[in-house]
């Protein structure tokens, strides 16, 4: 233990990355589109330029929902 703990969904899992690293760099590394997710620490939004250190824990939450027909 000791890296940045990252919780992902669909399926829910925790992965670890070596810090320090910027949030945007983390998203690039995970090949995630910044328009499609939020990064959250506890109940606080974490901006893209925030520096994550070892032992930080963040959730990457998808924001895209579907389920509509053509309308």
């Amino acid at each position, binding site marked *: 233990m000791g890296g940045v703990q990252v919780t992902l*969904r*669909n399926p829910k899992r925790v992965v670890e990355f070596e810090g320090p690293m910027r949030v945007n760099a983390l998203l690039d590394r995970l090949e995630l*589109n*910044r*328009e*499609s*997710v*939020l990064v*959250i620490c506890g*109940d*606080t*939004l*974490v*901006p*893209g*330029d*925030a520096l994550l250190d070892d032992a930080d824990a963040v959730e990457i*939450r*998808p*924001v*895209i*929902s*579907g*389920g*509509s*027909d*053509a*309308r």
Partner: protein
Amino acid sequence: MKCTVCRGPAVIDVRRHNANFCAEHFVAHCEEQVRRALHQFQMISPDERVLVAVSGGKDSLALWDLLIRLGYRADGLYLGLGIGEYSDESGEYTRAFARSRGLELVEVDLLEHYGFDVPAGAKAAKRVPCSACGLSKRHLFNQAAVDGGYDVVATGHNLDDEAAVLFGNVLRWNVDYLARQAPVLPARNGFPRKVKPLVRLAEREMAAYCVVRGIDYQVEECPMAKGNRHLGYKEALNSIEAQSPGSKAAFYFEFLDKAAHRFNADFADDQDALLACTRCGAPTPVEVCAFCRLVEKATTVPSSRRIPVAGA
């Protein structure tokens, strides 16, 4: 990253506005965008009663919260769709939100009131689940609004939803659907007015609004929506947006400004030709409306599968 308004630490960037916001000014930004949509498209008068279609997800709960903050008289309508644990949880999030704010919540359960749920309805009618779900929702929103004497139904469709629907309809040149795609559908023929006050806000902003405002919502995606076309369109548009911020807004609002009127004439003629459904009275182009036909298919057990009643 600093807040564009106050220069304090920012929590989110909104690239299409070339702006960053702290929590306080992000909430103000969302309020302003909703206020502008309400005004720009003349959605709701201050004295009107609003029924907000709430699902327990981020968009509808954020919408309800925003309308109340802006001073509107807004009650919630929750539809129990019978999609297993997903529906159970979405109902809990919705009730908890209403309870915590002392808001009025109307509930309609598809199985209890109409004898079927979305999975059964989709199977019986041989429709994809999202189609049976959307059809049921549209009918029940209208019915609940009429029954409750509401002037307007508000739904949580955001900019991403509208851009994705537009994208899909343009790909196939569904001119009938393009004619109906507007932030406001006026009341006519027994339908209440329908409005989409979140069209100036992206999906990511709605999720962020809930986090900032401490609104608990159902994060998990509907299990029946996984892999549908609509989600694929959103991902495609977000890839473009990442390269060129503002593309989604330009696509949708330029359509409204420059192209939508070219499709509207045929739609108006269709609306004038609507009849009353012989079973439920809802406006329909044919004798029995699509929802009543769905109810019939979903609740009619084939004779080969009927269980004999003892003594009959």
